[in-house]
């Protein structure tokens, strides 16, 4: 799974939470909680969905690394990469 595939999954899951936002137009380095107006419950649902779809373990301590679109993609890519070796 390359970065583009990961980005697609992340965008799909964010879209489930904030269907009215066009994710192509958001700042990929901006704080998703602000940009998408998501609360802690939405964010937990996002983490849960990523966990189920990609099998990535995301401890709560790592949440700050996933608060931007770019950050989330990089984090998941790194996790998937390290789990292959």
């Amino acid at each position, binding site marked *: 799974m390359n970065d583009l595939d990961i980005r697609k999954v992340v965008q799909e899951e964010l879209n489930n939470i*904030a269907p009215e936002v066009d994710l192509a137009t958001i700042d990929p380095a901006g704080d998703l909680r602000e940009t998408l107006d998501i609360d802690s*419950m939405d964010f*937990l649902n996002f*983490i849960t969905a990523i966990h189920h779809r990609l099998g990535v373990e995301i401890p*709560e301590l790592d949440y700050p690394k996933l608060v931007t679109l770019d950050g989330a993609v990089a984090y998941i890519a790194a996790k998937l990469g390290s789990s292959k070796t």
Partner: protein
Amino acid sequence: MKPVLDEMCRNLAEAQGVDLSTVTGSGSAGEITYADVERHLGEAVAPPERKRATWLDLDAMRAAIAAAMARSKREIPHYYLEHQVDVMACEQWLTQKNATRPPDNRLLIGALAIKAAALAARRFPAFNGFYRDGKFEPASAVHAGVAIAIRSGGLVAPALHEADQISIDELMARMRDLVQRTRAGRIRSSELSDPTITVTSLGERGVETLYGIIYPPQVAIVGFGKIVTRPWVIDGAIGPRSVVTVTLSADHRVSDGHAGSLFLAEIGRLLQEPDEL
């Protein structure tokens, strides 16, 4: 336009944004009466079961909020109290609990807040129940109305039943289910009328304090603001602590500030011992 019985009726319709052409008149010559407008608003407040799939109509929801809040401000003599609570114990407890849990089973601080408010409501019955026909009817169970914001505007507070009785894990699971169903428009109308007290929370963004408006015929609403880091004195020394402002808006026909302050302080005390929640 259909004839309207009197000026009071027209004012109500105007204030609530009711389109009079959609109201059925019950007057002798088909005029619209005050009660007709109220009934029309009432339908928006409690949509019938058959409308379930489509009830997430934001205009109807806005009308329902307008009707309920206008009635509240008209009828309920609110008094307001606030209390700052150190929630570091909750945060540390959650960090420890969640460290070993998969995302499905993780807890949010909002669950602890609801549980604490529900337990306090059981111990202080003057804040849990309904004011109807000129008298207060305490409720035998604590059904916490959880205020849930709808994206793109709108707010509902369906019941988390027996919130004081269930475990924190059960409460969290039900809260997740409630939020999901609410946002999908799959809430039963009974769930909207069941709450005996409302709990509302601003979440992690926004501001520190909110003063809720009581949802009639309930008699109290507890509000949690955003958690902030503040200098705090503990054992004679100043240190940074996570602090949340908890507020109570209560019905002065039923309780007084003295009881309200004890109720609010009890919520703060309960939040110091998350393991007991």
